[in-house]
């Protein structure tokens, strides 16, 4: 297909523009000149504060969280050979946010800023490993998705239990943030604590992406052409767990981005799972930055949660993709 070469540069440029636009727009719109001046250190202190402390970190958090979900979704889809696989659908995000909530609830998170991201990543890894174990035993994707639904429901129920028991309204609102997903009031500090995990996850996924192409042939033929299946499973599960956990630690559970972005990208990369990773990450990041701008601009009394907006757009897309799928491999 022509135009493939331009896909990544075009998405990168669009992402940069969206990040810049996120700095322009807000309750007090700023003209481009003032934002540029603030970004490069020439504006007054108030402008610098708005751009550097509020708008840029928030937009970057949305981008990074989305990109992590996009690359995890694309990789899990390659591993499970199914376009409906995604951290949200498979219960990975919910499990991560449950672990994050537990660490908040019991006050462990106060011990060190690293506790929260590590708890979220543990939750993500537990769910991803369960799915991968099930994937070895069953060829049916429906079963996998049902297991994901089960994990999601269990995590949701456990979260509700914690909310019921929440000692203060403050804890309660904190938990709602994790459940629904939001990047409001994020700072560079929080991005910094999630960054090592996000980068490690993305690096593992990118390093092992070639095997995802081989899996197109099915597991039997993939090992026949030279793929070490066991290692591939471990690497993809570990990478997606780290990236999704990092994303949840930063922004809570945001669903469906990981499904929509790879679905749009796939035709542009000749349906090759390996080549869909980077463009899917960029597109998912872009989608969340744009959705977050929408959240900020909508004149609602209480700000909408980013995860709610993502689900409102993403869930219908999920249903649409599921309905259009031919029942080829169950």
């Amino acid at each position, binding site marked *: 297909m022509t135009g493939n070469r331009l896909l990544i540069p075009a998405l990168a440029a669009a992402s940069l523009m969206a990040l810049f636009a996120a700095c322009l727009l807000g309750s007090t719109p700023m003209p481009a000149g003032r934002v540029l001046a603030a970004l490069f250190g020439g504006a007054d202190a108030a402008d610098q504060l708005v751009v550097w402390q509020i708008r840029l970190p928030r937009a970057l958090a949305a981008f990074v969280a989305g990109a992590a979900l996009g690359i995890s979704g694309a990789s899990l889809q390659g591993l499970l*050979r*199914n376009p409906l696989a995604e951290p949200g659908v498979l219960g990975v995000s919910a499990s991560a946010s449950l672990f994050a909530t537990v660490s908040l609830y019991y006050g462990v998170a106060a011990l060190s800023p690293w506790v929260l991201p590590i708890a979220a990543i543990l939750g993500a890894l537990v769910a991803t490993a369960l799915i991968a174990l099930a994937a070895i035993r069953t060829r049916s994707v429906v079963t996998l998705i049902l297991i994901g639904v089960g994990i999601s429901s269990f995590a949701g129920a456990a979260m509700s239990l914690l909310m019921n028991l929440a000692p203060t309204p403050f804890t309660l609102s904190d938990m709602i943030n994790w459940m629904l997903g939001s990047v409001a009031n994020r700072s560079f500090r929080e991005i910094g604590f999630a960054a090592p995990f996000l980068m490690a996850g993305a690096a593992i996924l990118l390093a092992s992406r*070639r095997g995802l*192409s*081989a*899996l*197109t*042939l*099915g597991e*039997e*033929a993939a*090992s*026949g*052409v*030279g*793929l*070490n*299946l066991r290692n591939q499973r471990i690497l993809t599960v570990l990478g997606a767990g780290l990236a999704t956990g990092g994303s949840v630690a930063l922004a809570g559970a945001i669903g469906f981005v990981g499904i929509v972005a790879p679905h749009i990208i*796939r035709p542009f990369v*000749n*349906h*090759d*799972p*390996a*080549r869909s990773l980077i463009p899917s990450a960029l597109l998912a990041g872009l989608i969340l930055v744009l959705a977050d701008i929408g959240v900020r601009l909508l004149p609602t009394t209480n700000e909408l949660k980013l995860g709610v907006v993502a689900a409102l757009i993403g869930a219908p897309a999920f249903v649409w993709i599921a309905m259009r799928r031919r029942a*080829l*491999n169950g």
Partner: protein
Amino acid sequence: MADLVTQDLSIDAGSATLVHGATLRLVPGELVALLGPNGAGKTSLLRAALGLEKRSAGLATLDGTDSEKLSPMQRARRVAYLPQQRPLAWPNTVRDVVALGRFAYGAAPGRLGPSDAEAVDQAIARCDLTGLSDRQTDTLSGGELARVHCARAFAADAPLLVADEPVAALDPRHQFRVMDIVRQFVDGGGGALVVLHDIALAARYATRMIWMKDGRIIADGSPEDTLTAERLADIYGVRARVAGRTVEIEGAL
């Protein structure tokens, strides 16, 4: 010289024994047909010979090395394997699927070195797919897909080919086309071990026939020596007329 050998190889699954003491050898220049009814243990034997399935006793070697000890990449460079189930998860282009045959050489679709690209082009030409190379695989017929899988296997440039029912569900013309492609590979110095259910087709193409029943190899030899009406009655339970390499199956016994 490249060879695939099993010696007294047995495979257990739980308490059942799938294969009992099977001994076979495949070398370049041979087209060996592996025959036997469903459940005779053909697929298990192939998989264990390649080191993809655990054996319970005996030996399996590829070029003298224990095939269970080979890494997947080393194995893929020595023998191309065409499994019975050949799903394609995504609607890739024909060329990209064939390019996956170069996986063991570090290549990937869209990232082929000069020698990889040459091997892929040759495999595409050999399987008569030149006009289809940019088509998406979900738009192809069953016969065309079978040739795509063959091309994928040949792209690896391995000296041996192990194919599990490569002509299943194909019409007669495509069966002949696929078997012609396999024979060309053998004439060009390759060695092929092919599971077939069509006895007449096997008798026509094979240089050697290996007959399996109930997990045991019953006979191993040229079609002239091993293809008899009694054997077909014993193994398949069918009444047949055999004259040299021609077979006519008349019905069930």
